């Protein structure tokens, strides 16, 4: 099948492309990238006039819930949801049940994802057996099955000793250790960010220092071991500054921020809406603005959704017992474009780096996407189409999103991976 993407503004930070071009895809491979390609002989034309065409978006942090919590998400629904949101590659975090701490589960996850045939799934293996923080998981065996990183996500790596060993062990494979930075004794029983808002609402707060303490510990150990530390879902301005200084010293530290930490601040909690409950919590406005600065100045390498599906009844309940986390695939592009591009003037090239080429590097993908002769791996999005987010259009099995009914400027349009072409649809267009 021949597919022609016509008149799109192609932005590929890796190859340096940044202009309006046509792309011809034949049988799932990029055949030609040029101006004025002939559309008379192709089977299908995507008119991308006024749209951005980029290497497929990559989500470096997502929970696909299989095995163990298929009521919330499956490999198939998760991969469809990813592509409907404009992502062609996503990670699968290891806090499944049973835990992804061995090669068999990794193989199962990859096989199920391949069978689904939508987004590519890159599994992340556990650091420790059952993520319990005692013994190292079978990292080498999991690397052979294709894990791209290790993480005890949901928990921090339990002790300094274990972290040191995990970092040392990871040197052999050159993969990052992705840290969920939360000092658990400071967040026990807490539900939201600790500050004026938690005080006013009478909700127990998680202080930013709980994040800062683990980020600090990790940077110190990583500097000593000289491994690769990746801080997941950064949310504290002080932690951001520690990462900035570590990078300035030339240490191998990377980090990510979520679209919701870029979009919301803790005043949203006044609604007591459980869809604003996640870890780390959405912080005060000063932290949010610091994250946006971090994206601008390059301290933050990528934007990752922390897609965390939960069944309805785990959110439709009291706020202090609800499940942490929100779904993110299908709202990431509208949220990021609305906030970063339209409100904070972040250049599109920087956004494409943060959502495509940088996370691709972090999870070890080859720098060969959106090039002639290579498998098609493309995300097309509109910066100017305004949509009202409609979760009923989502392909995820879950609906736990705080973006419901928000009018956002910017939308995913198409996600293309090989011969799979998905027309994205996450909300009603506004005229």
């Amino acid at each position, binding site marked *: 099948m021949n597919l022609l993407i016509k008149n799109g503004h192609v932005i590929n930070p890796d190859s340096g492309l940044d202009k309006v071009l046509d792309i011809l895809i034949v049988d799932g491979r990029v055949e030609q990238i040029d101006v004025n390609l002939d559309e008379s002989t192709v089977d299908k034309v995507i008119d991308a006039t006024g749209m951005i065409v980029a290497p497929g978006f990559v989500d470096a942090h997502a929970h696909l819930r299989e095995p163990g919590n298929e009521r919330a998400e499956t490999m198939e629904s998760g991969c469809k949801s990813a592509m409907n949101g404009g992502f062609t590659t996503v990670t699968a975090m290891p806090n499944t049940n049973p835990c992804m701490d061995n090669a068999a589960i990794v193989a199962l996850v990859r096989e199920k994802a391949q069978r689904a045939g939508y987004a590519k799934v890159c599994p992340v293996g556990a650091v420790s057996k059952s993520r319990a923080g005692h013994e190292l998981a079978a990292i080498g065996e999991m690397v052979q099955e294709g894990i791209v990183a290790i993480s005890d996500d949901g928990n921090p790596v339990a002790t300094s000793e274990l972290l040191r060993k995990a970092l040392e062990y990871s040197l052999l494979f050159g993969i990052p250790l992705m840290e969920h930075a939360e000092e658990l004794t400071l967040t026990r029983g807490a539900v939201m960010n*600790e*500050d*004026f808002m*938690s*005080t*006013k*609402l*009478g*909700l127990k*707060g998680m*202080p930013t220092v709980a994040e800062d303490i683990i980020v600090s510990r990790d940077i110190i150990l990583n500097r000593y071991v000289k491994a690769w530390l990746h801080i997941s879902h950064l949310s504290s301005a002080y932690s951001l500054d520690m990462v900035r200084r570590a990078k300035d010293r030339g240490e191998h530290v990377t980090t990510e921020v979520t679209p919701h930490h870029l979009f919301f601040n803790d005043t949203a909690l006044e609604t*007591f809406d459980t869809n604003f409950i996640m870890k780390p919590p959405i912080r005060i406005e000063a932290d949010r603005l610091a994250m946006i600065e971090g994206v601008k100045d390059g301290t933050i390498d990528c934007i990752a959704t922390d897609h965390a599906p939960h069944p309805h*009844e*785990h959110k*439709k*309940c*009291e*706020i*202090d*017992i609800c*499940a942490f986390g929100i779904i993110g695939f299908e709202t990431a592009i509208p949220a990021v474009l609305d906030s970063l591009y339209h409100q904070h003037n972040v250049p599109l090239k920087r956004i494409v780096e943060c959502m495509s080429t940088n996370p691709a590097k972090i999870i070890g993908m080859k720098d060969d996407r959106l090039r002639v002769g290579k498998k098609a791996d493309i995300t097309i999005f509109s910066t100017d189409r305004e949509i009202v987010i409609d979760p009923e259009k989502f392909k995820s099995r879950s609906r736990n999103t705080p973006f419901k009914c928000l009018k956002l400027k910017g939308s995913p349009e198409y996600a293309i991976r090989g011969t799979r072409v998905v027309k994205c649809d996450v909300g009603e267009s506004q005229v």
Partner: protein
Amino acid sequence: MQYKHKNLLGIEPLDKVEIEQILDGAKIFKELCAGNNKKFPALRGKLILNLFMENSTRTRSSFEIAEKRLGADILNFSASASSLTKGESFYDTIKTLESMEPHIVVMRHSSPGSAKFLADNIDASVANAGDGPHEHPTQALLDAFTIREKLGTLTGLKIVIAGDIAHSRVTRSNIFLLTKMGNDVVLSGPATLIPREIEGMNVRVETDFDKAIEDADVVMMLRIQKERQKESFFPSLEEFNMLYGLSRERVKRLKKNGIVMHPGPINRGVEINSEVADGPRSVILEQVSNGISIRMAVLYLLAGGKINELTH
């Protein structure tokens, strides 16, 4: 004049006029009930559901008396707070209750925001009888009523709230109410029990209790839960009493006519000493009886009653 909200979820959404309207209503009910006939059956035929998902003998009894005096039909529904693993979910409990077609639901629940959750999911009016440490509006109203009655004003006063500010359901509603009415509210207690950034609620914090109560018109002592000591909020009850217990000597620091309040139940020898609790400045028991009048006014207004139609 009619109450314009469907519910009473907290003090925060109310303005000064609405607060005064409730206090005035309570004053009339108090006078009406002063004689032998304490029945004022304005809510005859209305079903009021008392949903207590957390223990509360005092608030519950107070609401029940108010409901009985107003002639309402009453159903007491006890349920333990839900969990995701066992028992019925809170949402399902609400839907079950809705099928019983109550006019008003009075609820106590351990979770902040639970009163709003209830109100969002049920047709009935909701009176919040305490949603965790968030709000407890009828307590703040009865405190305000008592202050106004004893001191003749509810503005320009120095009011100290002391003790376990962090875990108190009473504090926030009182702060909202007393600052709205233009008082100088001072919080006192060890920093472990004072939540961060609370100054943003237009209050002052003075950790030195002796300084805090200097020239105060009102001091409100909060109950110390004994298990807090095990969580290292303070080293011992004795030490707490030494630093923050309201003793006879400390009471002398108050203004000449200053009053001592406590939402109860009191811990003698912890946050308040016996000679103060039983002393002439204490209005603790008046708070309890005023609570009934306040709750009568609140229920009457929630049922659509108008204060100016109440006759002596």
